[in-house]
């Protein structure tokens, strides 16, 4: 009766981290991209401070090449909340950033400017440690210098649930409440809590073109000279349209997405020892991963 499931434990931990941040910092801000991780963060935040409103604003770094479904979703769920938008397009229009087709790398300057302009001393991000190697060693409270830089050797040991948020003027702390969640946890939580997501997370038909093995939709970044095909796809991550690939999928509900993720593991599980089959699974997963 007094047991706690793994999702409840992860949720309780994320709420604890958010409350610590709200208690220790003067001006936190939550990075909100309209992607599933930031949507889950916002959902936990709403529960952690209920019945009061979330006590910090949201910040969206808008590359100008966002999926319209995501912008529409963002505007719907953030209605009534404080939303700051840092626009990459504005920087390009006034010549402060180059107008390159792939805009992912352009986000840093507007982000750091927005953090400085807002006087934000803590910035919530949806990063998870299971995503990749460097993240596996990231702290929950990650100290950044005044240029937003991460110096691995300056990071503090993090023990128990004691998060040290001390920082000098000009420095800020990136806070990762979902550090210990995996992609599967995020989807199980979305299903359990019935959380709405932008429609492009689920299978839909779309005209796409193949670029270096991933399905992109056409825009300023390409797709005009290339052969367009119609595919049933979904997005596993949402980011800048110029570099976010779709995966072929028939999953139309959170439950089906979970099955899809689980099924890909069962396929691998079947490969008990044959390196060939593992390599095959690797290729298959690589395709599924899209732009990774």
């Amino acid at each position: 009766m007094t047991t706690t499931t793994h999702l409840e434990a992860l949720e309780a931990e994320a709420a604890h981290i958010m409350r610590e941040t709200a208690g220790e910092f003067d001006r936190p801000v939550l990075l909100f991209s309209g992607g599933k991780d930031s949507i889950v963060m916002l959902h936990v935040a709403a529960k952690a401070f209920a019945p009061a409103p979330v006590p910090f604003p949201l910040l969206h770094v808008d590359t100008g090449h966002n999926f319209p479904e995501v912008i529409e979703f963002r505007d719907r769920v953030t209605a009534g909340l404080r939303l700051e938008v840092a626009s990459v397009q504005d920087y390009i229009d006034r010549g402060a950033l180059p107008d390159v087709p792939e805009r992912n790398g352009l986000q840093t300057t507007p982000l750091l400017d927005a953090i400085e302009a807002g006087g934000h001393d803590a910035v919530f991000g949806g990063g998870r440690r299971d995503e990749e190697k460097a993240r596996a060693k990231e702290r929950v409270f990650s100290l950044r210098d005044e240029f937003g830089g991460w110096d691995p050797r300056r990071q503090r040991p993090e023990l128990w649930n004691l998060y040290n948020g001390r920082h000098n003027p000009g420095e800020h702390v990136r806070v990762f409440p979902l550090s210990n969640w995996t992609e599967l946890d995020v989807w199980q939580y979305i299903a359990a809590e019935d959380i709405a997501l932008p429609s492009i997370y689920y299978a839909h038909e779309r005209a796409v073109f193949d670029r270096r093995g991933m399905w992109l939709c056409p825009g300023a970044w390409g797709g005009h000279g290339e052969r367009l095909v119609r595919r049933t796809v979904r997005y596993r991550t949402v980011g800048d349209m110029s570099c976010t690939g779709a995966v072929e999928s028939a999953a139309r509900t959170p439950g089906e997405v979970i099955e899809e993720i689980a099924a890909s593991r069962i396929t691998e599980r079947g490969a008990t020892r044959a390196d060939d089959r593992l390599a095959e699974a690797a290729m298959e997963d690589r395709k599924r991963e899209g732009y990774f």
Partner: protein
Amino acid sequence: MSTLLRLATAGSVDDGKSTLVGRLLHDSKSVMSDQLEKIASPSDLALLTDGLRAEREQGITIDVAYRYFATPRRRFVLADTPGHVQYTRNMVTGASTAELVVLVVDARRGVTEQTRRHAAVAGLLRVPSLVLAVNKMDLVGWSEEVFAAIADDLDYPGEVTAIPISALTGDNVVTPSEHMDWYAGPTVLEFLETAETGEDLTALPARLPVQYVIKTRGRRAYAGQLTGGILHVGERVVVQPGGRTTTVAGIDVLGEPVTMAWAPQSIAVRLADDLDVSRGALISPAATAPGTTRELRATVCHLHEKALTVGEKVLVKHTTRTVHAVVEHIGTGGPLGVNDIGDVVVRTAADLAVDDYAESRITGACLLIDPGDGATRSAGMISVG
């Protein structure tokens, strides 16, 4: 629904810890596609836990890496601690949140001095359960006698389970060994899936360190995560420091009203009386509340290059409360260098309501922080009485 188990690994550099962790991740199918491509043969399994480019280039170790894997029964958070330099600091960090530690030894060498140090650190951090993974059994002819001698050779204050394995061949890691029919116990993964860690937080006295005050229309609710125990609506509670008593008027678990809540839930409570309660206060049942002190005694692991000295001013971070303090006494007399462990007495500027670390690994733990640059200097395990 599955539960969450947090574990840490420890072992010397050549004992095969990375291969074991790689084998667990690989055989439980928790490996991402880009990582799998590197694995051409079982001896490459250690590459799955390969470090950062910065670490390889600069020859440094950026302490603990966290790995994630799951089975239908359980989700695992594994703190993977490097075995070589700064092992104390890394192990203390990894073990602080672990309910179980997997200690790897080489069957050919048995329990070494470093094995005993690792076990001592895990014991100091009160990790309730230890798995002694006797690795490289293939290199000792799968010998029962060799295994039995090693299994009997380790003292640990908690529960010990010894398992004979070969991480390289996979024997008894995820799949049962075909080479050791004398061993009838579980594989490492089976044990991790079913282990009762002996750490039932709900059996502890209830403790709610207040993190944040939620204010709505004149009503105040005190938000925090229960570090132990069960709290009921209507229960008589005391708020420390101060020691005023009142009654729990209502409890929300992340917005949902309930009549009782238990650790480790994140909750918000409303109190019957209008007391002055702010971040850093501790709410406990009046009958089982901890005592308060300004003379904090603790065993500390020093984590920072700058030594800890008698007379030095520090900040003590205990649950959600941070207070000024001065280091009054160090057991050895001298300064504590990085990776040193010692007993200290710290005089605090304000009352702290503390438990003994043996009672609670959360309300019995603290950090010593440098008031100048904010660095985390030491990790402390509090002694009471």
